[in-house]
């Protein structure tokens, strides 16, 4: 009996073609995904009023906690009320068009719908209170806000929880300053964990240590919830 293997080869050819296309597709897909997800994009949402941190915190050297008063006593740093804005702007730059917008909200008795820029995923527990009281500078995580006209973070262009703090990389401490430096740390678990690994808490202040980190600070449930 004469049996040809041609039909079998034919189907093999098709299978091989599919395999090649699949493999190439996987690589191309991975590359595209890599392009999209690993390329940080600056995220700087439009705010209802073009508020400049550079003018306030930079040029006029207003301390962060003058407006973000809740940072040292609550988990959330808080956004100042319109009342706080008007406290100064009753007198300062009242004729500027931007300040007129503020006074409009004030007169209408409406809060300003600020857009949150630095946001943590819902499964993360973070308290500003503990960190501010330990003497960690705001810029450690938030970057050089005092130089920003518009607050921005580098975010990954996916729906994942990753944000990239647009810091110069300096992890700062109000006492020792320049503690660790990693260029463009992602605003994700590594940023928290690196700092927790390198610091100990002595008399309620964060102090740099070479190894160990502080008691209980490396437990998953310190940050996760």
């Amino acid at each position: 009996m004469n049996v040809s293997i041609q039909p079998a080869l034919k189907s093999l050819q098709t299978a091989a073609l599919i395999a090649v296309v699949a493999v190439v597709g996987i690589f191309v897909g991975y590359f595209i995904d890599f392009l999209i997800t690993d390329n940080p994009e600056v995220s700087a949402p439009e705010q209802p009023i073009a508020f400049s941190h550079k003018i306030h915190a930079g040029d006029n050297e207003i301390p962060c906690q003058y407006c973000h008063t809740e940072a040292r006593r609550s988990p959330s740093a808080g956004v100042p009320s319109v009342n706080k804005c008007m406290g100064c702007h009753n007198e300062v730059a009242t004729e500027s068009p931007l300040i007129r917008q503020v006074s409009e909200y004030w007169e209408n008795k409406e809060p300003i719908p600020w857009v949150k820029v630095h946001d943590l995923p819902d499964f993360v527990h973070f308290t500003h209170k503990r960190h501010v009281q330990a003497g960690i500078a705001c810029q450690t995580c938030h970057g050089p806000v005092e130089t920003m006209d518009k607050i921005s973070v580098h975010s990954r262009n996916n729906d994942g929880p990753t944000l990239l703090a647009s810091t110069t990389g300096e992890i700062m401490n109000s006492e020792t300053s320049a503690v660790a430096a990693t260029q463009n740390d992602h605003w994700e678990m590594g940023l928290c964990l690196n700092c927790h690994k390198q610091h100990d808490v002595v008399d309620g202040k964060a102090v740099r240590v070479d190894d160990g980190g502080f008691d209980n600070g490396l437990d998953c449930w310190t940050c996760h919830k």
Partner: protein
Amino acid sequence: MSFLDRITEGWRKNRKPGYYEDFDYHWAMTIDLDQCSGCGACVTACQAENNLPIVGEDAFTKGREIKWLRIEHYWEGEYPDVKLNVIPMMCQHCDSAPCETVCPVSATYHNQDGLNTQIYNRCIGTRSCAVYCPYEVRYFNYNDHTWESPLDQQLNPDVSVREKGVMEKCTFCIQRIRQAKDNAKDDGRRRVRDGEVQPACVQTCPSKAMVFGDRNDPQSQVSQSLNDPRSYKVLDELNTNSSVVYLKKVEAEG
């Protein structure tokens, strides 16, 4: 130090006798079955505190309901001389927990407070822990659960809403423990005072059958309660060394 040495050292540390007594805190609970009437208030409190979903009729009939704390019913005797025994059953926070050793991704582990904890983000849903748990107190999310408005407004922001494919269980209301520690730091205290932290079930119990506290502190209410001659641990013969201790019901002889 070589990699192997580091592993050996870590192993020795964990094998050290009395390692579990070295904890900063050692949270424990006692449940007095003499006072427990099985009313189920703790079950409801747990549901509200920890964002537990109502799974619905279909899932319920498949045995997929999620209750971190449940009241188990044991009937004794024959009609008309029947007697109901109840026992609230939640994660026993075993110090030698069978579930911890089997997790392939270390999503469940023992923390420095003597708690058996579960990290939802890390869990990949193999369900091996539930298989190994002798108390059957681990619950798996077979579905994504949603809360219709306005019920979503009552979700506890300190507890994440677990998604499909994640194992969950009683945490001894770890968010409250964390909050109590935070308050202690604010007051300049190093330690949490006895009675300062109560899980939702303990807080709700109308007959005060449940007592929660730090076992390391010999003066704490729970330590006193542990010395009660009626105290026993469920399935103690399995050597799980659990942190939940029951006080036996006192019954009339005969």
